Structure formats: structure tokens, C-alpha cells
């Protein structure tokens, strides 16, 4: 556990070091938080960026930033090494365009800052503060780290490499509406099975090449392990080529991280004896593709555990990993497809919670605590892929990456749901501990019983109880807990609450800010490692529109997190959309508006969104969660 507060002097030392080195956005975060601290522990040195004076009611926020510093420090060390790696890569220093744009909106940013702090003042922060204070006060001073570390941001939020040149210089313009749904959906169609007699290889290769995005996993020895499209027979020649290219650079002791041909970007991630390759024509940044490859790697670890993976390859470098991974291909594929469709959760390395009233969440938390089985490690209630409630031991946080794997397994891949019963699944949560298995009990609730007259509940609306235990023999214990938990939830009306929250869905931007120019937003709460967003309806419901929306977000994210920039506000106008990103130590807000949207109106709306989220914070996010 990290100490609750570090010596401010040390911190400043860190900060100086950071700014001395080739500082990234991460280090600018640290600067900011240290600034916040400086308002409390005055220390004149250092040239801090201008910040409006903050009212005292914000001391909570300051606390958060301050006590978060230890984890940031830990991350900063990795950031430094990443910088080193980054400089090795060929196209460094492309971030200038976005730095330029940040300059352009610098004044704007100041205005926003002031507004934001005002909004924080006017929002019913006092009651919120009381609430969080009650959480805090129940936990000893030394445990503040635990409370906020319910989710640990173990995936560094700093972009690993320099952002893609093309994406920064030319904001991605999908030629207006030329991607229709059918075309995009064919992205997920199977290639078909290779049949040598039928001589259909050419056709299949054609189909294979038509895909916008590929993921390949191969072993260092050049054995294909998994591919999203096609089978190993079809792609073996390409795998051979990729393997040759990768090992060419490896021989030169210069690890290949990525390259481009035409509009196609190749990104390579190497972990031990595994090469993971993403090939994308969807204008994603290296950082995003790398995050996606990391998630696929985590899925492999989750299936095999790190020691057994290492063992397999150390015993026989030419091991065919296809066999041990058998049956988990669908998990990899559904992960890959969620990336191709566009996943805010992966982009922001955080997860989404179901919005319910704080008292309701408290009731569910209490039911979890009350029914907790002795051998329980984590207990989760998840509705339509969004977290409703979580119970965890005081000393263990949950990693968003792990939860992403769980949610993918439970909600996206059909293997669990289609089983029709309760499931008992050995799973390794690499963020928690990559060396062993935990056992996961999953049961889906049929909410149709609760509210009558409802037609079939789709995958999106299902509610699952997920109970995780370190003991593989504890199925019946978990089952018993599930039964009493569901009984409790039914008795105290929580199931109805969950159902209606799921039915209500996400809010429209116009629900939050009437007549706003904003059409969609993503908001990430940094301390909670959670995000919230507006409904995809009405404009982004179709798969292809949603994909384009995510592309805009991807680029917004890439720009504002680009290396060597200290951008806090980024405003970008393109032919198809106006986009706007705003990053503070507390949150990251990304929003999209009409191309013609007025900048002031946009900024005003963004500020109102931030204000709204702060008001609704304890409904939108799980803060602390139930701890035992």
C-alpha cells in the first residue's frame, strides 16, 4: 500500500526531474497536482501554469490529487522509460500541430478553468463533500489510497508512442456517409473455411484483404497462434512475412514498434515469445492500437496465466499455442470486434457504471456485504455491461483491464450466457495477479420476472451476478450467496431499480443541457478510473456512425495526450464535426458537435456537462465501493 501522502519536497523534486526530462502529458499532470498542493503548502518556486484560485471547498479535490500522487509517481517512472522507447521510434516529435492548436485555444482554456471552478462552487458540493467525507472518515487516514484505488489505472494513461502523423495533421475525415452499415458489418463476417479442393483460396484472400482491420498473434518462432480473420492456412504466408520483418529488426537489437504502408498502419507489440500485430486502416493511433493489443495479451494471460505461458515457451520455443488456447478464440475475437466497433472503455482505460441514486447503490452494496460468503474475493453486480455495485477486500483494488476481460467474457462472448445455467469459470485476472487462477461464478438474472410484460431481454439488458473466489471448490458457497443476495435485492426493490435504470439508458446531451450543440460526450473521472457518456441515440446508433464517432474520439484523445504537449483544451473543426477535448487533473472531457457549431456555445455546453457530472458524481460513479 502506498503512503497516504508523500513528502512535498520529494514531490517537487520529482516534478523538477520530470520537467527536466522530456516531459510528457503525464508529467504535466503531476505539475498540476503539485500546483493544487501548492495552494495548501505554499512554496513559491517553480513556474506553474496559471490557475484560478480555488475555493476552500475544493480541498477535497486537492486531497484527491495529492494522495493520488504516489501512484502517479509510480506511473511516471514507467513514463520515463516509455519516453526512452518513444525516441527510438522513427517518427518522433510530430506533436507540434496539436501543440500549436493548444496555443490557439489557450485563452479559451483559461476562461473554461474559471468557469469550471465556479461550477464546482455552485454545485451542491457541500452535500457531496459530506458524503464522500463519510466514506473517508470511516476509513483511516492511511487507507485513503485504498478508497480511491478501487480501480487502479494500471494501464498508463500516457500515450506510449508518438501519435500518428496522419491523424494529427489531417483530422480523419471519413468521406461523408460513404461507410454504410452493411459495408461495415461485413467487417465481422467470417471469411469461410479454406477448402483446397474447391480452390476458393483466391476468393477468401480477397475477402481477407478487404477487412479494415486485422489482429494477428504469432509466436517468436513464427507459428501463427490466432488471427481475427481467416485461418492459419490462409494467412500463413503473411505471418511468415511479418515474422521476417519483426526478426530483421530484432537481430539489429532495434525492436520494431510499427510501420505504415499507404493508409494502413501496422503496430507490433512483443511480450516474451509472443508477437501481437494490429493492422488497421481505421486511422487509429499507435497508442490506441497498442492498448488493444495489450488487452488481447491480457486475454491470453487470463486464459493461461503468465507462468504457464512462459513455461510453455521455455520448454519448447516452437510450442503451438493454439492448442492450449483452444476454446478461448471467441473471447479474443469478441474483444477484437469490440475494438473495431469502437470501445470508449478501452480508449479511456476505464469503465462505465450504471447510473443509480446513491441510496440505491448503498442498498445494493449493503446487500452484498450482508450476504458475503467467507471465501468471496470480489463480488459484482453488472447490468448491461455496466457496473452496478462492487464489493472487494480492503487491500485489493480492481483493475479496469481485468474488468474489461470479465465483461467481455460475460456479456460479449456468448459462451457463458448460452450455457443456460450458472457458470463456474477458472480465470486469471492479470491485473490482480498474473500467476494464478481465480474462480468466477456467473449467474444471469431474469428480470422479466420482476417487471411483467417484457419481451425478450437482449444481451444488452441482462443483469449478471459475478462472484469471484480464490477457492476452486467454493461453487456452492457462491451459489448460496447469489441466492440470498438476489432474494435481498428482490425484497428491497433493488432489482426494480436496476431494471428501470437499464431501461432508462444513458441520457441525451439535450437532457443535460437543453438545446445544446453537443451531440455526444465522453467524460472520464480520473480519480475513479471510470467514465460516463451520453446516449448514442439519436445520431450514433448505427454501427458505422458509432465507429466514426469513436474515430473522432480516438483522434481527439491522441491529440490531447500527444507527447511533448501540455494541452489542456483542444478544439478541432473538421468538415464532419467539431470536436473538443478538455483535460484537467480531475477529469477528461471529450465532446462532439456539429461542424458549424459556435465555439462559445460549445465551450458553454462542455462546461455545463462537467458541472452536471460533478453534481451527479455519486450516481454516475462508484466511489470507493463496498469494502470488507
Amino acid at each position, binding site marked *: 500500500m502506498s503512503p497516504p501522502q508523500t513528502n512535498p519536497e520529494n514531490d517537487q523534486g520529482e516534478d523538477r526531474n520530470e520537467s527536466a526530462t522530456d516531459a510528457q502529458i503525464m508529467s504535466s499532470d503531476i505539475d498540476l497536482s503539485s500546483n493544487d498542493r501548492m495552494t495548501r503548502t505554499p512554496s513559491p518556486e517553480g513556474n506553474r501554469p496559471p490557475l484560478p484560485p480555488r475555493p476552500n471547498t475544493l480541498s477535497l479535490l486537492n486531497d484527491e490529487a495529492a494522495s493520488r500522487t504516489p501512484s502517479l509517481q509510480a506511473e511516471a517512472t514507467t513514463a520515463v522509460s516509455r519516453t526512452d522507447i518513444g525516441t527510438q521510434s522513427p517518427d518522433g516529435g510530430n506533436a507540434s500541430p496539436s501543440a500549436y492548436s493548444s496555443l490557439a485555444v489557450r485563452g479559451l482554456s483559461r476562461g473554461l478553468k474559471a468557469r469550471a471552478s465556479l461550477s464546482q462552487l455552485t454545485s451542491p458540493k457541500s452535500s457531496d463533500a459530506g458524503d464522500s467525507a463519510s466514506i473517508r472518515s470511516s476509513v483511516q487516514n492511511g487507507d485513503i489510497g485504498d478508497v480511491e484505488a478501487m480501480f487502479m489505472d494500471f494501464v498508463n494513461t500516457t500515450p506510449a508512442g508518438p501519435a500518428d502523423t496522419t491523424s494529427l495533421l489531417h483530422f480523419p475525415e471519413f468521406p461523408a456517409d460513404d461507410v454504410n452499415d452493411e459495408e461495415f458489418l461485413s467487417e465481422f463476417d467470417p471469411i469461410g473455411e479454406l477448402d483446397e479442393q474447391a480452390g476458393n483460396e483466391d476468393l477468401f484472400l480477397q475477402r481477407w484483404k478487404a477487412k479494415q482491420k486485422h489482429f494477428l498473434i504469432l509466436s517468436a518462432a513464427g507459428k501463427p497462434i490466432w488471427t481475427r480473420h481467416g485461418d492459419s492456412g490462409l494467412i500463413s504466408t503473411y505471418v511468415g512475412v511479418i515474422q521476417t520483418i519483426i526478426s530483421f529488426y530484432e537481430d539489429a537489437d532495434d525492436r520494431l514498434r510499427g510501420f505504415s504502408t499507404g493508409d494502413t498502419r501496422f503496430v507490433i507489440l512483443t511480450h516474451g515469445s509472443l508477437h501481437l500485430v494490429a493492422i488497421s486502416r481505421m486511422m487509429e493511433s499507435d497508442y490506441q492500437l497498442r492498448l488493444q493489443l495489450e488487452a488481447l495479451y491480457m486475454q491470453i494471460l487470463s486464459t493461461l496465466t503468465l507462468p504457464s505461458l512462459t513455461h510453455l515457451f521455455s520448454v519448447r520455443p516452437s510450442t503451438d499455442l493454439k492448442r*492450449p488456447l*483452444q*476454446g478461448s478464440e471467441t473471447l479474443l475475437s469478441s474483444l477484437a470486434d469490440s475494438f473495431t466497433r469502437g470501445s470508449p472503455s478501452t480508449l479511456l482505460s476505464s469503465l462505465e457504471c450504471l447510473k443509480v441514486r446513491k441510496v440505491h447503490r448503498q442498498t445494493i452494496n449493503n446487500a452484498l456485504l450482508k450476504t458475503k460468503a467467507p471465501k468471496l474475493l470480489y463480488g459484482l453486480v453488472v447490468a448491461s455491461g455496466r457496473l452496478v455495485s462492487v464489493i472487494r477486500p480492503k487491500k485489493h483494488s480492481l483493475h479496469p483491464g481485468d474488468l474489461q476481460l470479465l465483461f467481455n*467474457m460475460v456479456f460479449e462472448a456468448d459462451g457463458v450466457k448460452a450455457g*443456460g445455467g450458472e457458470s463456474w469459470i477458472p*480465470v486469471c485476472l492479470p491485473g490482480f495477479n498474473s500467476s494464478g487462477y481465480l474462480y468466477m461464478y456467473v449467474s444471469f438474472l431474469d428480470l422479466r420476472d420482476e417487471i411483467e410484460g417484457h419481451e425478450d431481454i437482449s444481451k444488452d439488458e441482462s443483469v449478471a451476478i459475478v462472484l469471484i473466489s480464490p477457492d476452486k471448490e467454493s*461453487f*456452492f*458457497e457462491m451459489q448460496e450467496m447469489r441466492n440470498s443476495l438476489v432474494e435481498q435485492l428482490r425484497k428491497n426493490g433493488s432489482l426494480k431499480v436496476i431494471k428501470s435504470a437499464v431501461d432508462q439508458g444513458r441520457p441525451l446531451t439535450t437532457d443535460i443541457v437543453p438545446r445544446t450543440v453537443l451531440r455526444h460526450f465522453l467524460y472520464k473521472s480520473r480519480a475513479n478510473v471510470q467514465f460516463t457518456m451520453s446516449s448514442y441515440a439519436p445520431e450514433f446508433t448505427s454501427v458505422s456512425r458509432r465507429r466514426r464517432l469513436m474515430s473522432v474520439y480516438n483522434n481527439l484523445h491522441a491529440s490531447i495526450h500527444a507527447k511533448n504537449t501540455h494541452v489542456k483544451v483542444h478544439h478541432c473543426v473538421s468538415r464532419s464535426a467539431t470536436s473538443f477535448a478538455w483535460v484537467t487533473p480531475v477529469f477528461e472531457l471529450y465532446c462532439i458537435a456539429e461542424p458549424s457549431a459556435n465555439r462559445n456555445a460549445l465551450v458553454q455546453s462542455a462546461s455545463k456537462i462537467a458541472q452536471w457530472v460533478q453534481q451527479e458524481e455519486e450516481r454516475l460513479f462508484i466511489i470507493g465501493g463496498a469494502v470488507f
Partner: protein
Amino acid sequence: MSESAGANAPKPSSSVKLVLLGEAAVGKSSLVLRFVNNDFQENKEPTIGAAFLTQKCSLPTRTIKFEIWDTAGQERFASLAPMYYRNAQAALVVYDVTKPSSLTKAKHWVAELQRQASPGIVIALVGNKLDLTNDGGDSSAAAAAEAESEPTSGEGEDNAAGEGEEQDTASGDSRKVSTREASSYADEEGLLFFETSAKTGANVVDVFTAIANAIPESSLKTGRGGAGTGQTALGGRSGDDSRVNLGDRNAATAKEGCAC
């Protein structure tokens, strides 16, 4: 249970722990889904870990509540299997009639069960995907040979299977494992034997009914009033169970009695 339960005294009911084993993709989950939900999904995703389902089976004299462990067939889950077949009173070892290697795997499972599972365990060998063979076309001709019942029916099926093999490529019959081969193996080992199609439903319920009938009365405990006692618990009771298992073979039946 078609007769009104109100008039008669309710039939005694007991739970039976049943485990499904077999190579990946032979149709274990599909068999269970057909039995439990009378449902079939084409291209079902592989099971991850294991699924737990229950279904009642009504016999003339009693009701059996099956507590079914549907295990994943992949190699990497094999080490978890003992957890599921420990204390099981019945096992379904499934192979795919179109895939000879799956019968080999099934034989391994049978051997392991005979070596390690409860001594009184009832094992059924089930060849699934009968719909892919010529026998599968009409279910009246579908092969159903209970090892014990044999001769007349057995011969008929063997012939049918023989024909099937000859016509293999010509008629699109994908059968690769003859009924004769599997059933004679089942005979040798004293297993129940069925060929089924989870897709058409042929013989699926029959398998479970036959198992229910084959469970010795003495090994059943009445489940009434003790639904929550969980005599099939994986965990908490494992201590008791292993203790009992150390005793003589007949103790396996006594154990069930003392669990309530």
C-alpha cells in the same frame, strides 16, 4: 409428471449429480440444453469452465432431480474435471459419431472415471451428432442400444451403421464411428450406450431417463426438505466425502443417506 399430484401422495424425489465429459465440440452443452430447455443453438460458442444446470426427470415411482455439471472439453480444463466427477452418481461421456478421435478421448474419460470416481457411478457412453449420419434422417431408425437390452435392436442398428459406412461419400453420411464399435466397447465396460442428436432431439431424453432408472434405489436419498443441504457440494463437504470414500465401496451409498 402428468398425473395430478394432489390426489396421490407425492412421489419421492431425489437429486442425482451428473457430470458430462468428452472432447471439445462433441455437443455436450447442446445435449444438456436440449434436455433442460428443449432448445438447440447452431454454432454454439464453446463452454468456458463449467456450467451448472438442473432438470427434473419423472419416473413412475419417483422424481429425479438432475444436478448437471456441463464441463468444457478443452484440454486445459481437464485438470479441473475431478472436482466435477467427484461424488457424481452419473456421468455422460460424449463423443462425436463423425470424429473417431473423440471416441478415443471418451475411452480415456471412461477409464479415468472407473479409476477415480465414486465406485457406484453410472456411466453412459453417448455418440452425438446422429443428424449428420444417414440414421439421423428419421428418428425411428435412430440407433438406441442400451448395453443391457441388446440383441435384436443391436443387430438392426449394426446393419444400418454398416450401410452408412459404405455409402459414406456417396450420400453425404459423415459417420466415422460405427455403432457396432462403440456399443461393443460400451458392453465390455458395462456402460449404457446411446446415439443421439441434440439437433433433432433424437434419444436425448432417453439417455437421461435411462440413467435415472439405472441409479440404484439405495444410492438415492430423498431430496425433500433437504434441497439446500447440497449433498453434491463441491467444497464444504469434500472433507466428509473423501473420508467416506476411503472406506469400503458400499459406503458410497451410505454416504448419500447420511448427508441429510
